[in-house]
Each structure stands twice: as C-alpha cells, then as structure tokens.
C-alpha cells in the first residue's frame, strides 16, 4: 500500500546522528510513512550524494516526499499529521516549512529567513528541510538536485519556475544536528 509520505535519508557513516534521525521519525503520531535510506559508505562526496537521489528515485513511493538526511531530525511529533491535513484540504504540490540551521558564525538560525519567506528560493538560504513535494513533481525534477553543490537550491529553483501550487506553513518542523556554513552550502 502506498504510504502518505516517504522520508528519504542519505547516510554517510554517522551512526549517532542517524539514530537521532530515526528516533525523530519513529516518534511521529501518524505512522503512514516509510523511510528510504541511501547509504554512501565509501564517502564519495556531496556530488555523488546529490545524484544518488535521482538514481534511487524508483524506491520513493509515498504520495509526498521529504528529504531528511542523517544529520538532520524532525523536532515535532505531528509533522506527518500536519502535512497530511494540508494535503487533504489543499492541492499542495509543494509544502514549504521552516527549519533550524546551525551556522558556524551565527548559532542557530531559522531557514528560510523571514526576508526570504514566501519568496522564490535563494542560494544558501534554503535547505532540503524546507520543502515537502508531491511525488510526481519530485520525480519529474529530482535530476535537478544532481549538482556538485547546492543541489537543494537548484531543485527548489526548478520547482518554483513551474506553475505548481505552493502551500506555506509557518512552522519550524526540523533541524540540522551539526554545525555548517551558510555561505559554503
């Protein structure tokens, strides 16, 4: 049976963070999901990881898709149930949400920042944690993610260039687990 949501989790030899990631998924009140793991035990790098989404697209079967990499986690137990309510009531092709990003210089910041909220994506100001995408749309554009850097931006940019309906949910739903650089993304 087709699950409502597929979590796509790219993994790279980070078992402790992966455990936190899985625990955050398993705490969901609504269990109508599956989680697909795309492992990179050889540490082939970001480009390979970005292209792995396309090459594993046949494994993604949920009605909606959310990329939740091993160094990230959900921070609310009602993520799935909330997204399902939106999907039921609206024709949302893309659901945009907010997330916490741990930045090297600025501590914990919210992405997208307020000045970029309800605007087309800006490089370095959007994360995979910010969009849940209807599966057919995700499959149609996931090749755009196959970039050496900023695959999330290129993917989101491609979505916004189409005439898809976008639902903006002003709620912080997920967070990164490790510190990164906003400018280096």
């Amino acid at each position, binding site marked *: 049976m087709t699950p409502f949501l597929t979590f796509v989790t790219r993994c790279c030899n980070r078992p402790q963070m992966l455990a936190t990631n899985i625990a955050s998924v398993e705490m969901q*009140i609504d269990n109508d999901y599956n989680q697909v793991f795309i492992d990179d035990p050889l540490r082939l790098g970001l480009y390979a990881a970005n292209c792995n989404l396309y090459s594993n697209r046949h494994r993604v079967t949920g009605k909606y898709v959310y990329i939740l990499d091993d160094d990230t986690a959900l921070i609310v137990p009602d993520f799935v149930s909330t997204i399902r309510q939106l999907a*039921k*009531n*609206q*024709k949302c092709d893309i659901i945009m949400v907010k997330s916490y990003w741990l930045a090297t210089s600025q501590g914990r910041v919210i992405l997208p920042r307020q000045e970029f909220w309800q605007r087309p994506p800006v490089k370095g100001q959007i994360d995979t944690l910010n969009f849940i995408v209807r599966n057919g749309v995700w499959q149609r554009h996931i090749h755009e993610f196959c970039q050496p850097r900023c695959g999330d931006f290129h993917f989101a940019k491609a979505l916004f260039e189409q005439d898809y*309906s976008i*639902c*903006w949910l002003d*709620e912080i739903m997920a967070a990164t687990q490790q510190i990164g650089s906003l400018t280096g993304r």
Partner: protein
Amino acid sequence: MATYTFLVVPVTSDGTYIVNPTNNTVTAIETYLNAQGALGYAVVGIITGRDGQQKLILQKAS
C-alpha cells in the same frame, strides 16, 4: 502560481483559546490573530498530540 499560507497554533480542548506553550497562558483566538495581523484565517484542520494537546491549522484568506 497558486500560493496558500498556513499557521499552526495550540488551542484549549474547546478550541477557543490559543495556548502559549512556554508558560501555558491562554489568549482568546481573535485577540491572538489580531495581534499577529492574521485576522481572516480560517480553520482547515485539527490535530491532536499524544498528550491530548490540540492544534488548529489555520489558512489565511487569499
């Protein structure tokens, strides 16, 4: 491109008051939305947590 805007707010069991999760104080929904500049939102969904806490999903009128 069609766009829709939503908020999620915790409410009391009768659905009439917004709950502040930090200090558990409550505010009438109309007062809260007015303060947010968000009057005109409509309820499109209700979710209930394991602890029984209810949340309203509100959609801004387009």
